[in-house]
């Protein structure tokens, strides 16, 4: 473990704890909904500002940790407060900070316990950022579970009709995965301690633990259990459509845009580097599941009647793509995977935002009751068209860049997987065009609120749209940031 303690300003801790500070303030001013709103917005904007500032000012092209913090925490058990940010974390944190601003803005009119709502959204932000930063396994697990609690309440309290069912399902699925993770973390800690006499949870140290193959496989499977459920990979995905469908808009945005990414990040940062041999052996299985999920989810999405479910299943399908890229285990595919994660966060987040807006105007999410929205809301529909096409992978818009890199990477190492995966693009078109068909084309369904976008909604959609186009047309800056860390990870090294 590198004992270097950064003497410079603890930017990472600032990023991490700012939202929690916002939470406290929100709870203090819980009497006034407006105050909470602005507090939440201010906090998320501040986090965005700090992260963008870091992204601009740091030498992002270089390998290694861009920022690193390491303090003593609980000495008795060798638990340390270790945070580190490399290019991948930086990108994901940027995404988090951005989407949280969107999540706050989209819930601007929240009437039900606004203070608590915004407080939970901010706690969630701390949890997610913590997951992306933590390098001590206990710290990581702490944040991993911290994400779960606010999400549970966001779904369970502010959700729609079947919210309790969805919240419990979400909670049980993810919890059962993460318990195995906890078990594996503790056993690994003990094993490492027995071997070296140094009891520590530091990732860098645990990487050196000598394991025989069986042990490694067991640990790996336990780690993956948590991550795979979160991603979610087929066949562990059935919580996602329910959770998405029932969650409030901000919850859906966070769930699709961020929570799913923590699973992939966990694989990249923890599961693969800690257990390289087991990971290598598991790649074909991972790829097979990813491929199945890719098609399976797309097929199911094609038949859904609830527009939120269509987008939810599309998430499963896209994440299948991401995992497939990881399974290909080469630079191009990994870069594509990380890029697709980010693009998917933006596009799917945008789609959920739009669905919330549509629901606000039509009071329904049933495809049968929707239609012809272009007639009364051309601007809203135009944005919807843009995001749908971004999601189905139109070149020049966000998802395509990631998908094509994944395909190229996969094809160059496993041509058959790549060739099969290409088919996924077709089915993405099938369900997305059906969604468009049912929502914005066709005869008009007479929404009760015929107003087009209001100023706040423009404010939400324009940055999303610009980001979608930017990621599609010029993703090179993002690729440059993630290049060095991915190279290191692929070589089995740590920054």
């Amino acid at each position: 473990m590198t004992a270097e303690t950064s003497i410079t300003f603890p930017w990472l801790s600032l990023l991490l704890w700012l939202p929690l500070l916002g939470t406290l303030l929100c709870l203090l001013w819980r009497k006034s909904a407006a105050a909470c709103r602005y507090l939440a917005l201010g906090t998320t904007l501040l986090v965005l500002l700090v992260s963008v500032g870091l992204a601009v000012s740091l030498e992002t092209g270089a390998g290694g940790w861009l920022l690193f913090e390491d303090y003593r925490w609980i000495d008795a058990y060798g638990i340390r407060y270790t945070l580190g940010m490399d290019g991948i974390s930086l990108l994901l944190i940027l995404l988090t900070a951005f989407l949280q601003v969107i999540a706050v803005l989209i819930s601007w009119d929240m009437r039900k316990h606004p203070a608590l709502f915004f407080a939970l959204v901010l706690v969630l932000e701390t949890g997610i950022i913590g997951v992306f930063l933590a390098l001590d396994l206990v710290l990581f697990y702490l944040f991993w579970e911290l994400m779960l609690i606010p999400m549970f309440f966001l779904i369970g309290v502010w959700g729609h009709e079947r919210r309790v069912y969805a919240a419990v399902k979400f909670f049980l699925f993810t919890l059962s995965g993460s318990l195995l993770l906890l078990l594996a973390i503790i056993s690994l800690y003990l094993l490492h301690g027995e071997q070296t006499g140094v009891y520590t949870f530091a990732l860098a140290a645990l990487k050196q633990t000598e394991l025989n193959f069986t042990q490694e496989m067991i640990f790996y499977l336990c780690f993956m259990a948590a991550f795979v459920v979160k991603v979610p990979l087929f066949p562990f995905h059935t919580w996602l459509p329910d959770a998405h469908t029932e969650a409030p808009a901000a919850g859906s945005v966070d769930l699709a845009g961020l929570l799913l990414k923590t699973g992939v990040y966990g694989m990249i940062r923890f599961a693969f580097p800690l257990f390289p041999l087991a990971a290598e052996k598991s790649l074909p299985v991972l790829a097979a599941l990813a491929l199945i999920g890719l098609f399976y989810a797309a097929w199911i999405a094609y038949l859904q009647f609830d527009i939120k479910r269509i987008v939810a299943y599309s998430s499963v399908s896209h994440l299948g793509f991401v995992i497939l890229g990881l399974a290909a285990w080469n630079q191009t595919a990994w870069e594509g995977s990380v890029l697709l994660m980010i693009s998917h966060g933006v596009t799917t987040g945008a789609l959920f935002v739009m669905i919330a807006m549509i629901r606000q105007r039509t009071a329904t999410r049933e495809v049968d009751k929707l239609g012809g929205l272009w007639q009364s809301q051309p601007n809203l529909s135009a944005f919807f068209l843009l995001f749908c096409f971004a999601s189905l992978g139109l070149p020049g818009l966000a998802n395509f860049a990631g998908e094509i890199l994944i395909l190229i990477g996969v094809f160059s190492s496993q041509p058959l997987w790549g060739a099969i995966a290409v088919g996924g693009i077709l089915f993405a078109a099938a369900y997305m065009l059906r969604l468009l068909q049912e929502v914005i084309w066709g005869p008009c369904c007479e929404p009760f609120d015929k107003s087009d976008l209001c100023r706040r909604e423009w404010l939400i959609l324009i940055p999303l749209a610009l980001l979608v186009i930017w990621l599609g047309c010029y993703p090179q800056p993002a690729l440059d940031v993630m290049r060095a860390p991915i190279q290191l990870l692929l070589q089995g090294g740590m920054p």
Partner: protein
Amino acid sequence: MTLLLALIPILPLFGGLVNACFGSRLPRPLSALIACGAVLGSFLATLGCWPGAAGEGLKTTLFTWLQSGSFSAEVGLLFDPLAAIMALMVTGVASLIHLYAAGYMEDDSDQARFFALLNLFVFAMLTIVLADNLLLMFLGWEGVGFCSYGLIGFWYRKTENAVAGRKAFIVTRIGDLFFTVGLLWLFARFGTIGIEAINSRAAELDPTTLTLISLLLLGGACGKSAQLPLMSWLPDAMAGPTPVSALIHAATMVTAGVYLLCRMFPLVSLSPLAMGVIACVGVLTAFYAATCALAQREIKRVLAYSTMSQVGYMFLAVGLDSVSAAMFHLLTHAFFKALLFMGAGCLIQLAGHENDIFQMGGMRRRSQTVFWLFLAGLLCLAGAPLTGGFFSKDLILATAFAKGDPFHLGIYGLGVLTAGITSLYSFRLAYLLFAGDFRGEELPHELPKLMIWPLPLLALLGLSGGLLNLPHLFGGRSWLSGWLERENDLLQIPLQSEYLLLGVAAAVFLLGWLVAHFRYRRFAERETEVCKQFFLTGWQCDAFFDRLLIRPFRKLCYFCWQGGDLGLIDGLVEGFARACLQWGHAIRFLADGRISRYLQGFAWGLLLIVGWFLLQAVR
């Protein structure tokens, strides 16, 4: 010069974006003006670049789009002779069609959306044409698909229009899958996706791979160009506004497949098998579509099938190793087919928005101008001697004949037969439209001047298109072949045979006319025969695909959803939950709320512990 080159695609992109973002707030004439101006500017830029195209051509790289590992895709433009002539055609025809559209859309409330999509289409099409690598080409490829989707479903209030747009996008995307796989494969083999690099190194590939890649590219081309078996979207695509049909589904997008094959010709031509398949696909589509066109009732569907048929000829030309013949026919076809579609738009307007040719007739009396212009287009289509269509089609057929082997002679035979059918349905259309009296009840709508005056120009181009590549026989110098540096495409057959072939072509044209003259001169509502019904529905292809693909697909989806997700996975999960619940119910009596019961449990536990210690003590 490179700036000018970059302007070619950027101008329409800019016009499209302006119209998309602010179009609805601009005054109507301004929005139309921006759209037309952008395309016209692009046309002028193409003209400006033209001198640079000869030989190696112009090249420019704007920026790096994607770079990862050894993979790199630049936004780079390549302006070589092939691209130049295609770009000139696209921008030229598009300019005229934009002018026409300004008239056509005069009182449509959604004009801005229309022009935004139309401009973006031109941008995407030019990207296909000018791209110097396959990925950028793919961007244009999908971009035209998107615009085509948006424009076919432009009048979205009718569900079937939107459905037609969706069908077009999805069917062409099936083709795109093949294209994508081909692209991936080429990259895996060559480590580059630059078109020139791949073409120059194509010979390194082993024959099997080469054939497979060529066939994959053919698959992509088939989707975009509505060739067998991915053809069923094109007739439905006629739901869009007429300028769209003229621009996208006649002159430009559907020929993108031909262009792709020409672009990759050095690669494709190395595989004889692939070439044979391309020729077969081409001639079979030509024949299939011509028969379908015979029975159609809607004017635009007739034209759609005829487009499919003509594009089939172009494929045939590629398959016959003759890029210049393909491009020749592509150009003349673009002129006369755009003319025909725009003329059809005028006729529909004149007939009071009546689509059905059985309800028309006597249209000549409604507008002499349109009659003559439309007739000029039909003559080109039918291959009347000395028109542009005649020369280009004859060149293709003669090339097939010149190959001499039985396979190619068979193709020649089928091609000639198709030419006869083409002539037949062209004149059927002419007689049904213009002969006799008007059979419908609608009153004519007024025709904006803007809709008329691009037509004569196109008619002129169509009729004189033969000059582009006038064979030596007629004193020409085969300019196009020279420009494309494909001198070996020139016919190598004796003069007598050439005369003979010309004679056959003319005879076939006359035969078709005569049959049409006797059968359709006087309109009679004939009862629909089975055969006719078969042709009308495009050989029942839609029903066939519905049975073969769509229904099983829906069943599969339903099975995955109900059986897989809700049944198996959720069943297992919820079954487990239910089992827990059952177990809880089973032991529920233990917790009946009485303190004494709980303490009893406590006591039993105590007993167990004590018993355990006792046992230990005994041991």
